[in-house]
């Protein structure tokens, strides 16, 4: 057993660090670390810098313009990015659709869409969930009916993250209703500018606009936009979900969250002393740190297995559950660390240009919103209950 990175991996980590020191703008890192609101331009700027360095598409092989990184290199890079305060890479085109097209798409689709994703020409969003189909995704009803060279799509998608920024949406649609639900689903690429599509914002409990409803009324989609074979969409979707789930463990985010929590606790005062020195609060932080240390090692075990050719299965479900619980616990402690100053709700102050003095400590402003927003991680990407069902079935045979 050897728990250290190889010399090559250490060199790679140093390269990543100097790239970040060089190319990640301070103002952008400050926004990310300060919990400010990010706009489309912020993501675009960061994507562009990564692209110029050839480091944008971590999950793609080199022949398609990806990094061709090993699982450990991906892990190292993500950790360094998050620690430095880089915005996340918006996953829909790069981490979700890209791998699906590479594995199941046609040559034409690959040569058309992949460069456009890399160049930032197309923003993608994910059209899976529907009002009636969340955990039971296979029951989805949005229908695509063949009409000559087109599919005609009718129905509704919901919870579409960043759909309001997107040029394209990849959708699961029903192409056959006379079979097992999973066997009548197809994977379709739809241009958001096609007539008949309406996008409506959903405001979340923190007052933010991140998700949307997308309505389809007689939307005509060329048959060339079908990925792979008709009625095989479920297979592709499941393949994609495994990519979604590994990211969701969020070890790097948990670590930077914990570091932030400790800083806040060292500045907040309780009874004339920093909260970090308060025995009770310190044990709460220690508890989550112990969990995180173990989870990080768990994650490295899985990453290392993948490095040696293993395919993560139920382990990604387990990581997703633990990872999200820990991230939620950290935001909970952060909110508690701020005491009464967790209460003010000043959404304007989340804009980088806001220049009125903060109410209470500056770092207090985003904490309650982040705590509430973080409830989502145990709901999306396959809820934690669904992950447990998967573990019970796949690992325990129950």
């Amino acid at each position, binding site marked *: 057993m050897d728990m250290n990175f190889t010399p090559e991996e250490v060199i790679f980590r140093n390269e990543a660090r100097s790239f970040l020191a060089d190319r990640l703008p301070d103002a952008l890192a400050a926004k990310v670390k300060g919990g400010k609101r990010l706009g489309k331009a912020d993501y675009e700027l960061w994507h562009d810098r990564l692209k110029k360095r050839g480091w944008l598409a971590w999950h793609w092989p080199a022949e398609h313009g990806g990094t061709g990184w090993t699982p450990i290199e991906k892990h190292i890079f993500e950790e360094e990015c998050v620690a430095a305060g880089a915005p996340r890479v918006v996953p829909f085109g790069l981490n979700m659709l890209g791998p699906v097209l590479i594995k199941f798409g046609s040559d034409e689709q690959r040569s058309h869409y992949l460069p456009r994703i890399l160049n930032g020409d197309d923003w993608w969003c994910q059209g899976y969930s529907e009002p009636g189909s*969340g955990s039971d995704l296979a029951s989805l009803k949005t229908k695509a009916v063949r009409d000559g060279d087109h599919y005609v799509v009718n129905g509704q998608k919901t919870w579409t993250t960043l759909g309001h920024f997107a040029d394209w949406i990849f959708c699961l649609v029903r192409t056959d209703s006379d079979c097992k639900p999973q066997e009548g689903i197809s994977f379709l690429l739809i241009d958001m500018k096609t007539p008949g599509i309406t996008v409506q914002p959903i405001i979340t409990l923190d007052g933010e606009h991140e998700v949307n409803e997308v309505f389809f009324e007689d939307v005509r989609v060329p048959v060339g936009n079908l990925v792979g074979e008709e009625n095989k969409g479920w297979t592709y979707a499941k393949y994609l979900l495994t990519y979604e789930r590994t990211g969701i463990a969020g070890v790097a985010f948990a670590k930077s969250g914990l570091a932030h929590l400790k800083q806040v606790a060292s500045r907040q005062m309780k009874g004339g002393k920093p909260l970090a020195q308060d025995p009770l609060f310190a044990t709460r932080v220690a508890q989550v740190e112990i969990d995180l240390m173990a989870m990080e090692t768990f994650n490295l075990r899985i990453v290392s297995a993948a490095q040696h050719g293993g395919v993560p299965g139920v382990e990604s479900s387990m990581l997703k559950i633990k990872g999200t619980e820990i991230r939620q616990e950290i935001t909970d402690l952060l*909110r508690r660390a701020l005491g009464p100053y967790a*209460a003010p709700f000043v959404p304007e102050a989340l804009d980088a240009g806001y220049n009125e003095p903060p109410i209470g400590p500056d770092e207090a402003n985003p904490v309650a919103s982040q705590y*509430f927003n973080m409830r989502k991680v145990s*709901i999306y990407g396959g809820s934690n209950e669904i992950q*447990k069902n998967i573990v019970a079935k796949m690992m325990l045979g129950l």
Partner: protein
Amino acid sequence: MDFNLSDDRRMLKESLSRFLQDRYGFETRNEIAGSEEGFSRELWAQMAELGLIGAMLPEEVGGFGGEGFDIMTVMEELGRAIVVEPVLPTAVLGAGILADAGSETQRSLLESVIAGERLLAFAHGEPESRYSLSEVRCRAEKTGNGWFLSGQKAVVLNGDTADKIIVSARTSGADDAESGLTLFLIDADAKGLSGRGYATVDGGRAAEITLDSVEVSDEDMVGTVGEAFPVIERAVGRGILAACAEALGAMETAKDMTLEYLQTRKQFGAPLGKFQVLQHRMVEMCLEIEQARSATILAAGRMNEDRAAREAALSAAKNLVGRTARLVAEESIQMHGGIGMTWEYALPHFAKRLTMIDHLFGDADHHLERFAALSQAS
């Protein structure tokens, strides 16, 4: 032993419940919360007319209640609809302090408070005091027959709309000493007093208040010089009870909404409520709510007992309610799935109020420590 409400309280509860059902639907509530003042003066007047403020004050000052169970009855109903009107700062904290320690003249103001014509706030917490009741850096310097007040007050509930504000200040002693605290009743438009109002995460309002040599007279003092700590502790005790009761009401609604959702929302061809794992989680929630209710009843019943018994029961209740409120807030969102995260839907607003109640008058950990300290002392 009898755990039933008296007839008077039951009638009050029923009329309040009917009023809120008729007039305080969730959409109305959110509209009110988003308005400039953050509450409705019209509904406030109607609530006063229903006797809601009077019920929480004793007869000597024109009320008709003022016992722990009165506070509990009213606040629980208000919690069921997450009412944003300034009941807590005006009726429980402000009026409670004047009834407890005010001079004749000050107490005579309560008639207009009970009638809904005057709003109060209690400005005690400071930017660095966190949940400590004795850490007060705001100072009162003696002049001829009055005082100059200077300092900062933090997250003052409804501090931007109150007509009169009760301010705590240090007249002697170290920054965190229990002795040397004095209360003053100040006009909100007094010279040298400025406020910055803002919305709070749970749909309420609060303000940061700055006192810059605010001149007050001896007659504006509430109670005795340097001896306000017990008054403050009793006021906060009533606040804790009110917050616990409000949380109970909000938890009941959140639980009911979640139960109804589990009965109607179908996935995998069955109502969610058919999945045993969710059944158990609902049961867990109900169990903990009963625990929180019992702790709150215990505290309400001990409001007139000696300090040690009363404060231990209050800290126990606030700790249990804090833990349970978090459980209910998080679990009811989780069991709703995505819909539980949307602004348009009522449930998350209950979850937000439940969470923020933990930040009022000390969170679950604060009261855990306090309970331990109180039991060691006794």
